[in-house]
C-alpha cells in the first residue's frame, strides 16, 4: 500500500535521513508520523509566537523573536516529554457567544 505524506516544505530530505536509520518498517512509520507531527507543532508554535525555527537532527528548537520577557521557553525543544500542569490564573473573560 502506498502512503502519501503531506510534509512541510523543505523537510523531505530530513525525513529520509531519519528513515534511513530505521530498519523495522512499522517502527519507521511511527517515527515518520511523529517526525511530521513534531514539525507541524513547531510550525504552530511559530505561528503563535512570532518565532524562528531551527531544525536539528534530534528535534526542533524554536527561538523566540518577540519582546516577551525571557523565560525557560526561550529555547524550546519539541521532543521533551510532558511536564507538570499550569497554575490557575482564574480571571473571567468573554464567552463563546460574546456575551
Amino acid at each position, binding site marked *: 500500500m502506498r502512503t502519501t505524506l503531506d510534509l512541510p516544505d523543505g523537510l523531505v530530505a530530513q525525513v529520509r535521513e531519519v528513515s534511513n536509520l530505521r530498519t523495522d518498517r512499522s517502527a519507521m512509520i511511527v517515527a515518520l508520523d511523529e517526525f511530521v507531527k513534531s514539525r507541524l507543532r513547531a510550525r504552530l508554535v511559530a505561528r503563535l509566537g512570532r518565532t524562528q525555527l531551527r531544525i536539528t537532527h534530534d528535534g526542533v528548537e524554536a527561538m523566540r523573536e518577540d519582546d516577551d520577557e525571557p523565560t525557560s*521557553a526561550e529555547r524550546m525543544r519539541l521532543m521533551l516529554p510532558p*511536564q507538570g*500542569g499550569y497554575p490557575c490564573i482564574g480571571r473571567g473573560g468573554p464567552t*463563546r457567544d460574546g456575551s
Partner: protein
Amino acid sequence: MHRSRRPNEGRVLIDTSVWITAASPDGDRVVRRTVRELVVTGQAATYEIVIAEVLRGAGSDGEAEAMEAELRALDVLPCDGAGSMVAAMGRDMATPRQRIADLFVAAVAWRHGAALLHSDRHLSQVAARFGIPETAM
C-alpha cells in the same frame, strides 16, 4: 457525573476561546505563551468542534488547510459517543441553558481526563458543575 477526575498525564484541552486569543497578533502574551508551552511539551489537546471553530476563522482556504494540519498534529481527542453525555449534562444544567458547544468541550475533557483551558465564563460554570479541572484565562 459530579465526581472529579484526575487530569491524564497533564493533558490540556484548549478551548476555541483561548485559540482565538493566542492566534491574534495582539493577543494576551500570557495566553500565547501558555498555549505555546502546552504545544511544545505535548500537553495540548484538541477535538473536532474546536478544530471546526478555529478553522472557520481562517482568512483563506490555504490558511485553513495549514492550520488544520498543525492542529491535527496535536493530541486530537475522540468525541465518539459523547452526544448522550452532552445531553445529560444539558438536562442537568437546564438553568441557565448552556450552549451545546460548551457542553461538548466539557464532556470530551471529562471523558479523557483532560484539564480545560479556556476564557469563557460559561465554561467555568460547566467545569465547576462537573468537577472538570480548568484554567480560566
